[in-house]
């Protein structure tokens, strides 16, 4: 019997009293949360807030704590929110559950299924290798390729899927160059480039990270406004390009390559391409369907609906038997889909009961800020919060408040939506910030301090770039603040 058949465990050998206390911490935490909930609900209703709003505030605070602490899985907290809203009389149960059927939820589900098909068929690997091969001239070019290729791919599929797909390729490249963990700066730059490329690219469209459609859904539920697929891209892509350039130079600066000859890495890429053989019919068909879907999202997305296009593309894939339901079941993160339904319902509950407005009034609106200061605070909060908590949770927590505050500062709600959603996808500093970072860290070549050092500078750079773009470029698109 080998070790893999026996669960990997460790025994906590601290004194039993301490073990019991640490194991009970969770129970104490839940009791404390329940008491807090009860306290908020039973407190005298503050001025400017209705009793219903007070209950919505209690649900929001509890959900916020649970999302941030992750005492419960994100999806379960969302389910709690969906159930708590009608139970506390904040909204009718039919309304609460109907919000789960939001278009964004189905768009996210469709996007996940399309990505699953691309990964399963090998199309995503082929595309990655095809482009990477063109950057095989030298060490610096390879780093550039490893930054740009995942960035481009994360325009069209979730960034975590891109990172996971590229990881075996980058690992093989490093092994072919016989680089050793802890010694090779080039290896660090390879893994960081692939991670940062996927992260930065993931904010460019609705497909790179499901937080973007969630943000649009909250915007639509609370204001009735929306941002189209192309409109989003046009607004965000310049930021993406600038951030990629900054990431490239920072990686080269911090991790000076000790090697120049990467011919063996090129040989690995060549071998992988040969291994894939000629494109199979199913790859071609999936590629074609994906291409048509992208064109439709850009051209007729607003009128036809993003989710309708995504789901139609999914149906076509099943019509042509390009994927099986088993492939999809294994790949799609159904928990995230549940999470989104709850987050949308909570966002609506918080906005419709004026809780968001009340919180905004009690905080940022009373600080005599300028719109620029408010934007900077929101962007910075979003970018640093996402290092520690799920980017979806950041959107669910910050956006309803941000949109509410935006009105009083004369900021376009669309601008506020972008100011929360885009930075919430830019976690560079910590392995737990995003799956792409965790995958890079798992290589064993990168230390946390490497990530923190370069990640912090990228965080600050991202805030500056975002604000400058928002101030200078977005007014040209009609997005003002």
């Amino acid at each position: 019997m080998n070790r893999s058949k026996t669960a990997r465990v460790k025994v906590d050998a601290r004194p039993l009293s301490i073990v019991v206390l640490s194991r009970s911490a969770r129970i104490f935490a839940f009791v404390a949360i329940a008491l807090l909930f009860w306290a908020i609900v039973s407190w005298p209703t503050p001025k400017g807030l209705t009793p219903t709003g007070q209950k919505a505030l209690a649900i929001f605070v509890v959900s916020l704590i649970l999302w941030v602490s992750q005492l419960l899985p994100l999806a379960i907290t969302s389910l709690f929110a969906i159930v708590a809203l009608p139970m506390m009389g904040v909204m009718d149960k039919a309304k609460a559950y109907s919000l789960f059927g939001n278009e964004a939820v189905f768009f996210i589900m469709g996007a996940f299924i399309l990505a699953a098909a691309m990964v399963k068929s090998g199309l995503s690997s082929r595309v990655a290798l095809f482009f990477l091969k063109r950057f095989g001239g030298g060490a610096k070019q390879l780093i550039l390729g490893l930054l740009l290729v995942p960035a481009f791919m994360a325009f069209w599929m979730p960034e975590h899927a891109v990172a996971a797909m590229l990881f075996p390729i980058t690992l093989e490249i490093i092994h072919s160059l016989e680089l050793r963990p802890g010694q090779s700066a080039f290896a660090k730059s390879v893994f960081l480039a692939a991670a940062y490329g996927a992260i930065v690219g993931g904010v460019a469209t609705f497909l790179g990270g499901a937080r973007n459609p969630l943000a649009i859904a909250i915007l639509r539920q609370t204001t009735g406004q929306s941002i189209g697929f192309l409109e989003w891209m046009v607004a965000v892509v310049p930021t993406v390009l600038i951030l990629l350039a900054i990431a490239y130079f920072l990686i080269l600066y911090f991790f000076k390559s000790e090697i120049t000859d990467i011919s063996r890495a090129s040989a690995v890429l060549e071998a992988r391409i040969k291994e894939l053989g000629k494109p199979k019919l199913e790859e071609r068909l999936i590629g074609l369907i994906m291409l048509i879907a992208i064109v439709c999202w850009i051209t007729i997305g607003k009128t036809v609906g993003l989710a309708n296009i995504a789901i139609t593309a999914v149906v076509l894939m099943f019509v042509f038997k390009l994927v099986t339901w088993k492939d999809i079941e294994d790949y799609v993160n159904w928990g995230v889909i549940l999470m989104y339904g709850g987050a949308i319902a909570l966002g609506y509950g918080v906005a419709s009961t004026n809780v968001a407005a009340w919180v905004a009034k009690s905080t940022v609106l009373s600080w005599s800020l300028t719109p620029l200061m408010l934007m900077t605070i929101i962007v910075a909060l979003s970018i640093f919060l996402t290092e520690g908590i799920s980017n979806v949770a950041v959107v669910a927590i910050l956006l309803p408040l941000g949109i509410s505050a935006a009105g009083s500062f004369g900021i376009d709600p669309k601008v506020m939506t972008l100011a929360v959603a885009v930075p919430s996808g830019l976690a560079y500093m910590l392995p737990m910030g995003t799956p792409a970072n965790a995958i890079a860290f798992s290589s064993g070549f990168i230390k946390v301090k490497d990530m923190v050092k370069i990640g912090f500078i990228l965080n600050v750079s991202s805030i500056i770039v975002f604000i400058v773009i928002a101030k200078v470029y977005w007014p040209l698109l009609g997005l003002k603040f």
Partner: protein
Amino acid sequence: MSASTTIKNPGLLKLDLTIRGMKISRDALATPEISRTLRLSQEIGAALELDIVLPENVMVNIPIRECLAEDRPYTLTEKDGRFFIIGGDAKTEVWVAPLAGFYEKKTSTGVSMAKIGRTYAGYLAISPTPVCEFIFQELACRYCDLEAKKGRAWSVEEVVETVEAAVAEGVAEYICLNVGYTDSPDGGIALLEPYIKAIKHRFDLLVCVQAQPPTSDEWIDATYAMGIDSIAYNLEAYDPDVFEGIAPGKMRLIGRDRYFEALKYAAKIFPSGAVVSNLIVGLESIASTLKGIDMLAALGVIPTLPVYRLATDSEETMGRVEAMAPVFLHLQNALKRNKLSPTWISHFNLALNAIDGHYFGGEAPLGQRWQKVLKSKHGGRIAHSISNVRRRLRVRPADDEVG
């Protein structure tokens, strides 16, 4: 010390009986208890043991074959259905525990259950598999009983059926599994995992295991997580030369230092008093055994002291009862000094242990109250539940942060 003197002290008698054995008189041989043991021993082709209860409920276990020799200082006799042990001109009444009924049963695959499990006054000993790298590399331990069990491993179902029969009869409060050494990082413990899981799944029983130390401490964590309540890594002798002489495989393939390391680590992982190691008294000098006791106790390990049995009463040995008796008093004091309770090993009646220390001039037996609780029907269940709760609290997935 003469037999007529030792017979008055149950502890000394147990010790002397263990060292020098006893013979069985013709009338005792004819009793159903003993004749049945002899018959079954012949049927299964292995020596069964007699469990004899001395005064004050002191248990001693003697292989039946050794009782057939004439050259023994004690005699077991029978008169009017009562058993006596006679030594010199003194005698004491004893009780011969009837042989377990399940020994006569067979598993659904037709294997005699007496071949699979042996019960010793409350604990059921099973060696599910004869696999041992020491035997394969001709480095078998000198007193190994696995070597005699050449043949196939018992299936999980066969073992479970045997345990079920023993439990139904009320003769198994603990299960003691023994496994040989395998040339793998787990050292052999992984072979036991399916048996342990099946036993724990079906019965509320405490399980102890005698195994060899794994190469990494990670496997000691896994051993505890499997459901094992008490672990024994048997050193057998403290003196390095004697250790190598009686256990060449242990010395060459594992190393004496690894035994100490693994025992020390296991003592942190398992409940206090649940990690044990044998030191065979009589194989090395008494001074060396005393050093071994001190060393093990300081590591948080309970030394158990099986006694070297003489093949004949005239055989030379490191010590007779006079020399050995102080060892058990020393053991009791060492455990007290290190605040170790022998409660968990109260079932190891094959060996003398600290529980018997008071017979050699020590204070009242250690952990006596707990032993009574453990031996009771509900006490056993409570002990099992406490053990499970402790495990639930302490065992975590390896990627969980502790602290």
